[in-house]
């Protein structure tokens, strides 16, 4: 007869237990709430995350072309299948030191209906689901410019960038006339 029929009651009970264990959603510490699905990446020694829904794609950084006359946080432009996307140094936006581009560096392309920009990531750390209740507001010791673009931090020290804010903030849009420059 088939293998299934030879399972005895003890085994069935064991399998049942296991299935029950597997079916349990991992306990979400402090708060519950919906899962925030994020893309995690490292910047220097810290691990950051942006919400998945703002991420269009993640690409390796092959060739960046720097531009004259733009602020330092604009590291250059990249050809993404015939479209030009600007690459921003999120560390500089956050008031930290400049990112160094290495072989593992990626561009995380954020997109909204009327904005598209790329962020430098030192390396990609994968996807994750974070229970929104576990996200704490930023520590007050951090400087003002940092807090502005941060959604919060988890107990594990994962810093969640406010991608929506980055995409919305008109101050990050370069709209520079010759006159305005001098």
């Amino acid at each position, binding site marked *: 007869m088939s293998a299934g029929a030879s399972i005895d009651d003890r085994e069935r009970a064991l399998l049942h237990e296991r299935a029950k264990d597997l079916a349990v959603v991992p306990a979400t510490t402090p708060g519950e709430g919906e899962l925030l699905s994020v893309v995690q990446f490292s910047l220097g020694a810290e691990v950051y995350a942006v919400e998945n829904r703002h991420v269009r794609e993640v690409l390796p950084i092959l*060739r960046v*072309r720097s531009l*004259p006359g733009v602020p330092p946080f604009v590291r250059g432009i990249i*050809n993404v299948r*015939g479209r*030009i*996307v*600007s690459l921003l140094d999120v560390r500089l936006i956050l008031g930290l030191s400049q990112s160094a581009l290495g072989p593992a560096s990626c561009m995380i392309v954020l997109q909204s209906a009327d904005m598209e920009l790329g962020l430098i990531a030192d390396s990609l750390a994968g996807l994750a689901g974070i229970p929104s209740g576990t996200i704490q507001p930023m520590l007050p010791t951090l400087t003002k410019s940092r807090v502005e673009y941060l959604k919060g931090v988890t107990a594990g020290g994962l810093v969640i960038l406010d991608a929506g804010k980055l995409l919305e903030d008109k101050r990050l849009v370069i709209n520079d*006339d010759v006159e305005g420059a001098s």
Partner: protein
Amino acid sequence: MSKESEFLIRVQETFKAEAEGHHSTMLKGLLELEKGGNGTEGDRPIIESMFREAHSLKGAARAVDMIGIEQVCQSIESVFSALKQAPRRLDKRTFEALYRALDLIAGLLRGNAPALEREMADVLVMLDPTTIGQDVITTAREERPAEAVSLPISPMHKVPLTMSETVRVSAKRLGSIFLHAEEMLSLKLAMTQHAADFLELEGFVGSLSKEWAKAGPAIKRLSVQCSGNASLRKILDFLEWHKAQDRAARQKLDKMWAAAAQDSLHAGERVEGLLTEIRAALLLPFSSLLEIFPRMVRDLAAEERKEVKWETRGEDTRIDRRVLEEIKDPLIHIVRNSISHGIESPGEREKKAKPRAGTIRLSVEQADKEKIVLTVSDDGAGIDLDRVKSAAIARAFLTAADAAQLSEAEVTDLIFLPELSTSPMITDIAGRGLGLAIAREKIEGIGGEISVETATARGTSLHIQIPLTLATFRGVMIRTGGESFVIPTASVDRVLHLDPTTIVFLEGQKCIPLDARAVSLVNLADVLGLEEGADHEPDAFRRPVIVLLVAGTRVAFMIDDVLGEQEVLVKTLGRQLARVRNLSGATVLSTGEVVPILNPSDLMRSVTLAAGRALASHEVSARTTAVRRILVAEDSVTSRMLLKSILEAAGYEVQTAVDGVEAFTALRDTEFDLLVSDIEMPRMSGLALCREVRGFPRTANLPVVLVTTLDSREDRERGIDAGANAYLVKSSFDQTNLLEVIKRLV
């Protein structure tokens, strides 16, 4: 959340496309079935296919929750499932039912579910597999003949899903198709480059066969003389073999080049054809831009307490949406100016015996296959040309005497000068101030032109010529500060090599003479704020200089290198970089490399701002009163005397030398302004002399003109390598040419 609904919409779109495919296959199958065996044994393949299609569509419909379609498909499927088991002749009524079922699917796909509820119920009843088949249906036919006949049974003309003449395609998708098609252009450019590479290689191999021909007699002699020497024999055999290989290679390359050239030509035609078609698909009627205008005109007029009528003509003309976007702001500027400064107040107009309400007319006209002409005219006060003139004189753009000689059109054109228009005075007078300068910049930015025509008291007309589509343009690829950039060829006046001895200072600004005018000279890397490339001294001899001409002003920019000219596609810098000073976009080379495109009018303004004031070309006398001294080195006495008399007749003081050594001695002893030298001379050739001159500190910057009978590219290059400023070939050399060159150099 929004991402999810977006996803759902995408899935539904995909489903629709898939459903349309199944639907049309079933429709075709049904028609064939009706024409053929009506469902008998011979129709098995069609029955099978109908069954499969209905089944697939049922599954897909279930996946996207289109229950109605799922049910109808279920019924169709069971009909064909029954037929599969027992093929039988289908009667007219069943066919009608099946056609109705397909129409129903089409209707449901269009989203008319509520309206189709009744039809749905009917069709489901009609398609009951237990009632289909000859026996049952013969009776059924008798029962409902009238109804069956009244049904629309010509599905070929009925199903809008597959038969419609037009389809809606989202602008985004069209844009993406266009992007892909445009990318084909770089493929075309790459192919052209490959063909050129083949040609170059072929030329290279060709020069080998020339050398073979020269060596031929010697090889022949050797083979006769040394027939006994085995080693030599081997070498000679090898040479023969090599020669044959070279010839074969050349022939092969010749063919490859011809094929590559042919292919690139064909590819070019296809790509251009494709692009033309897609560009046509991207055209929008002008009226889509004009919707905002009636309201804007009304509001602005009310604000100014004026009465203004807005009239348009030719708004059905179709134009590239990207051009429309670019033209929007300039058009708003112009109309706004017209209302606030062109049209007079109702009272004033009545005094002038004009109707109380002014009229602004916009006419859109397709001038030819590539151009659209917009005319914005008002019946207002017109531009006061005398006051424009006096403002221009006040700003030192003109002398009073010059102004008197200008034609009306020329005076009118002055209003486009940005420096002039920034003056508050002129802004107040003409009211066509900065706005016009910006409008002009934008219009020129897309390859258009703007001109103005005005009649005092009768009104003003602006004529704007814009391209129908944005296309590729030719650009000069340069390197500055170690990085490459593209400059639109249309703005390039010329490219030359810097001669530091010609640099003069005008009001603290470095200038070089060009066509008897001083043109300011700046380092492009400085203007852009780039680090100067390490291998360049600022004013190095023969440093490349690119002269840009924008709106009548020229500025010379020192650069590292000119890399060539090519066709480029303009891309925006992305949404985050809405506008970057000195750049107008970027292009992607066939190698995938991204190169920024410089914005010439920005560059000019950057330079102007840096200098603190306008640096329009100033008239300078190119010739000073001092007599220029020229040394002529030439071994042929005839040529020597000829050159001497030509140059003396032109007012130069001339000394001669019979060869390079004598010439160099003379140069060390005496100060000269220029050296004219032959190349082939005894003791020291012209090239050697040239190198000596460059190596000797006091003469390092002396202009040198080489005159020779040698005329090949290599010889020219050798001359330039040696440091000559000009290279004239005796065969082509006539007095005017020589004098022209000398005049430019001293």
